[in-house]
Structures are given as C-alpha cells and as structure tokens.
C-alpha cells in the first residue's frame, strides 16, 4: 500500500459517498477521471488491499442474536471440528488460539432458538461438549477501522 492508497482509503472506511456517482465525486477530489478512479479501485481490489465496499448493519438492531463460542478440542479432532463449524453460513469468524479453549468462533442467528440449535448441532456432530457460550451483552465498538499511518 503506498502513501496515496493510505491517505485515500482512510476516510472511506466510514464514509463512502452516498450519492449516485460516488467514484466520480472521489475523482473530482483527486483530479482524476471517473474511469481512472474506478480503475484505481479495481487495482486495490486485485491487490487484496480492498476487500470490498460494504454496507455494515447493526446486527442487533436487525434483531439478530450473536455470540462468541470457545471450544476445547483435542488436537486430533481439530480438523474435523473446524470443517463442521465452517460449513455454517451463520459463522463468520473462526480461529485457532493457544488456550485450553483452542477453537473460537463467532455465530449470528435470526433468533435465540436458531442460535441454540446451531450450537447443539455442532456439539452433536463434533462430539465436543466442552463449550463456552460467551453471549454478547453489550457492544462498545464493532468496526474494522484502522489508523493508517
């Protein structure tokens, strides 16, 4: 990522223009043409710097319930368990961590009942019963935003 990328992408993490032709507006700021700006974004995407431009919702305000789940999985069962977990579209993040609880994933569902049934299924399919359901109580911050130095 070069200096221009950083300067440019910084503000756009929170405020992509909500107008008919956003790339034209951004191009006006830099003295580029709209086509040049679109080509620039496509290159950022191809280079993996930009993942996507998205509308981020407050999932709780959409009535969605979510949790962070920690599992204690024996080494020999990690690969199988991860496969079971990752198959659910409701699970967005899943990480291996160096703790007694070693597999950590985030899960969201349209209702409490659905969330519980997903967790019950995972327990049943994986045979792993040692699970911490760290239910979300309050959100102080939820944004993948970085100070780009």
């Amino acid at each position, binding site marked *: *990522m070069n200096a221009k990328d950083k300067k440019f*992408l910084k503000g*756009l*993490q929170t*405020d*992509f223009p*909500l*107008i*008919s032709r*956003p790339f034209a507006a951004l191009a006006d700021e830099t003295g580029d043409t*709209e086509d040049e700006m*679109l080509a620039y*974004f*496509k290159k950022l995407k191809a280079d*993996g*710097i*930009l*993942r*996507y*431009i*998205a*509308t*981020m*919702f*407050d*999932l709780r*305000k*959409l*009535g*969605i319930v979510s949790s*962070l789940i920690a599992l204690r999985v024996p080494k020999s069962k990690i690969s199988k368990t*991860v496969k079971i977990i*990752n198959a659910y*579209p*409701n699970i*967005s*993040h*899943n*990480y*291996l*961590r*160096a*703790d007694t609880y070693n597999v950590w*994933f985030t899960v*969201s569902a*349209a209702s409490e009942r659905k969330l519980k049934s997903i967790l019950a299924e995972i327990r049943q399919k994986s045979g792993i019963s040692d699970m*911490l*359901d*760290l239910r*979300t*109580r*309050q*959100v*102080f*911050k*939820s*944004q*993948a935003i*970085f100070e*780009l130095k």
Partner: protein
Amino acid sequence: MSLKFNKKVVLGLSDPLELVSQPYKIVAERLGISEQRLLRIIRKYKSAGLIRRVGTVLGHFKAGYKCNALVMWQVEDAGLETAGKIFAGFPQVTHCYARQTYPDWPYNLYTMVHARNKNESQTIIKAMSTKAGITSYKIQFTVKEFKKIKSDLKEILS
C-alpha cells in the same frame, strides 16, 4: 428493540457494492425502486443507527496488520461501562464487547487488538491496561485463521 426495517432492502444492501459508475443504481434496480429512493432509505437507516456505515473494508493482512489478538478482561461490573468506552477509544481496537461470564470463566470484556507484530500488540495492550486500570486479563494471539467472512445476512435472516 428492533427498529422497523424493510428486509428486502436490507438484503439487497448486504452484497458488496459493485465497482461501477452507479453502484447504488444496480441495487435499486434489483429491488425495483429508484436510485434516489434507495439513497434516501440508506441515509434514513444510517441516521437511525440500523446502518453503521457504508465504507471500504480493507484486507488487514495485506494492509500490514498481521498480528491479531483477542484480549479478555476481568472487570468489576461497576466499572464495565467506563472500561468499555476507554478500550473502544483505542484505534487499534476494532471490536469491544461485554460478554456473559461463568463461574470458571470470569472474563466479561473482550477486545480485538490489531497490530503489525506481537511487540506492538503487547505495547498497546499494556497501554489499555494502564489507562483503564485493569490488571486481570488474558491475551490470545491468533494461531491460525480458519474462517473470516462478512456475515451473510441472507442466510442469517432467512
């Protein structure tokens, strides 16, 4: 306390915007409404807090933030709100959530801390600890990323 919202519009907006001259128009056409109407709805949802933001999502690994740590803190209930706000104020903290505890699992505040390396991460975490006055915490660095996707609202809301 769910606000009233149009599920079709929410789902229509849940796909990433296309990199074209009029990205909102594509979404509006799919929904069978005008581009201007869609933009009004987006602004309305944004001011209601239903939409947190419309913006670029960066590939953090390639952006140089290779080190991601989950830090769990044990905070007295009375100090939870204050600590949550202090941690949320750190730019390197992307997520800060209060969570349920259990008798053998006392951590009630969780932060995701992003840095370029472990040293930088530990410096940030120490600064957080000092600023909030919380000394009981556990750091868990990511050993391996098994999955990282944008929440699939179509699947979740269906």
